[in-house]
């Protein structure tokens, strides 16, 4: 049991299960799944579909945070990648025959470039990660607006719109296609971490930068790679988000999503100081956040109180992850239990 509770995955999964149980009791039809137009349809499917962008960002963010860094520019990269993809699909930029292919290539490339930029600032020029990525966070939306000429790009009438819509909102084998993207990315990243020394190096880096360097780990190179991965994930998330609404909304796409991504990492039980990490539990963290959002909508919480309800749930989850807090609560409980047992042993009557 104690081995189980010590696992990084334990508390995020408990949080998710509690949320789902809550829904099972209080939300009508929450678990009902139907088949409509040859795909599964229900709240659970919505959660799996809508969590995809956040899950991708959380994967990238986990790696960056593991090295002791942080990437707050992902929201802006989401906007840039969406702007590029939609502009190409709509034929505003370039004239490609296969707009879909080039839209994906250039959007993902933009994410990689943003990642390289962040990585160079942090790893080579040694700017503090928050400050370094803040630059792109601020400038990124400006760049995105420059690409769309300050307009919301809608691709409803573009020729490849249905193919593009499929990426973020389509269904494969009855399940959201976005879910498959997340699973494939997760598997690749996990394999990369577990099968190579990469994961170990990241943990060592986050624990002690200097001694990792002295031990012969290429600190700068590894940091650069994590920021590139994070940028790539952000670009992929940007494609999913813009595809889901058939348009690029530079002001609102991915707004504040960097905070949700960091939160997902934290709910996943990862230390924001770096060091030991688990990508899987960050994805669970993202699921918790999305599940909470869907719950709030399904329950019909008044819009004025949504933020408060979310905040209370999040703080509760975080409190339960803290060992100190659990000791304070359950420690006392155990103390009472012990003293009761002691009294019973001594033959006292407890009514």
């Amino acid at each position, binding site marked *: 049991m104690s081995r189980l509770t010590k696992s990084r995955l334990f508390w995020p999964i408990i949080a998710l299960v509690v949320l789902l149980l809550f829904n099972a009791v209080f939300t009508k039809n*929450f678990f009902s799944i139907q088949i409509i137009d040859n795909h599964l*349809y229900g709240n659970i499917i*919505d959660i799996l579909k809508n969590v995809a962008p956040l899950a991708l960002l959380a994967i990238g963010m986990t790696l960056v945070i593991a090295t002791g860094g942080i990437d707050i520019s992902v929201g802006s990269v989401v906007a840039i990648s969406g702007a590029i993809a939609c502009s190409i699909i709509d034929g505003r930029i370039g004239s490609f025959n296969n707009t879909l292919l080039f839209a994906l290539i250039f959007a993902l490339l933009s994410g990689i470039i943003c990642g390289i930029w962040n990585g160079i600032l942090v790893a080579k020029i040694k700017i503090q990660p928050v400050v370094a990525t803040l630059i792109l966070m601020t400038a990124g939306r*400006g760049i995105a607006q*420059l690409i769309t000429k300050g307009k*919301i790009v809608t691709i409803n009438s573009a020729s490849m719109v249905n193919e593009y819509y499929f990426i973020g909102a389509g269904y494969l084998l009855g399940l959201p296609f976005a879910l498959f993207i997340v699973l494939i990315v997760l598997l690749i990243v996990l394999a990369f971490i577990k099968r190579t020394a990469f994961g170990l190096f990241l943990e060592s880096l986050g624990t002690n930068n200097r001694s990792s360097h002295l031990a012969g780990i290429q600190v700068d190179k590894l940091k650069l790679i994590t920021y590139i991965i994070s940028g790539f994930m952000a670009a992929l998330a940007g494609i999913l988000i813009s595809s889901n*609404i058939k348009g690029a909304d530079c*002001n609102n796409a991915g707004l504040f999503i960097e905070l949700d991504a960091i939160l997902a990492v934290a709910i996943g039980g990862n230390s924001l100081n770096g060091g030991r990490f688990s990508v899987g539990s960050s994805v669970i963290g993202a699921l918790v956040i999305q599940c909470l959002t869907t719950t709030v909508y399904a329950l019909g919480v008044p*819009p004025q109180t949504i933020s408060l309800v979310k905040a209370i749930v999040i703080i509760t989850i975080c409190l339960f992850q803290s060992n100190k807090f659990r000791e304070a609560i359950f420690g006392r409980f155990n103390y009472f239990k012990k003293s009761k047992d002691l009294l019973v042993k001594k033959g006292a009557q407890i009514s």
Partner: protein
Amino acid sequence: MKFKKLVAVLSSVLLMGTMFAGCAPSSTTTAPAASTEKAAPAAQEEAKPAEKPKNDKLVVGFAQIGQESGWRDAETWSILNTAEELGVDLKFSDAQQKQENQIKAIRTFIQQQVDVIGVAPVVETGWETVFKEAKDAGIPIILVDRRADVPEDLYAAFIGSDFILEGQNAAKEMAALLGNKGSIVELQGTVGASAATDRMKGFTDELGNYPDMKILASQTGDFTRAKGKEVMEAFLKAYPGQINGVYAHNDDMALGAIEAIKDAGLKPSVDIKVVSIDGVKGIFEAMAAGEANVTVECNPLLGPQFFQAAQDLKDGKTVEKWIKSDEGIFRQETAKEDLPNRKY
């Protein structure tokens, strides 16, 4: 190593460059006439009491919120375009959604001694000081499309829509579509925004006249397409088969909701009626494709009315405190003919 450093520095300079390039089109863009004025501020000040002939060129400063939605883009376009047509010397500032930028812009306009200042306040509160400064300088302020929470004597006029009336019209249209009977879900705008509060109030008030119509659920979609879709998805699952109509506080949320309805295997505008407010091009395309029913226009083309009021104020005429914008209601039947005329 040195080379690497050089490359790093160069690339950072390059990216900083693009950063500013990104800002350039949205920061203060002044009409050509402005530069000459800046070159000789002293001369102008000396000449000021003596000159100001009757047909002096109208000089207007406009503090826009920034790029926000298709609607606001259209408003910006209308202001810039009308200024060019009328030959007005327009100083246009884009605040990038920040109040402090708008306040800075207004202070700059006061220093430049413009005739009239137009402002679309990004938030309702915190304007007293700067409006007072303008008033002391003798420059009238026209609020455009959003109100500010200030005493009435601090601004000359408000040009904009009657959001409550829009809500009422939407309710009437919905009633007509549903035959005065049915259940509706509401997609609200950003919590606290006056457009959202008033469009909700107007709709709810008007719905009181139809005893067989009720609002099943109401949730905020933050005026965005993504949230509109997400909330509608949840509504469709919480009330399967019970929703007859969806009322969205703006067209973008309605467009998101349409996608959600289609995903649920239902026909938007047939199985679930779609009524929204604003009148952006996207919703006309949707109506022409038979996916939306009605949009109650919230006209962003305020340029002509704005400059008319500005001219009147300069000429010393009195203007109405609330100049209501010219608006209409557009339905699916005529969407195909209307579509080519839509500017935004």
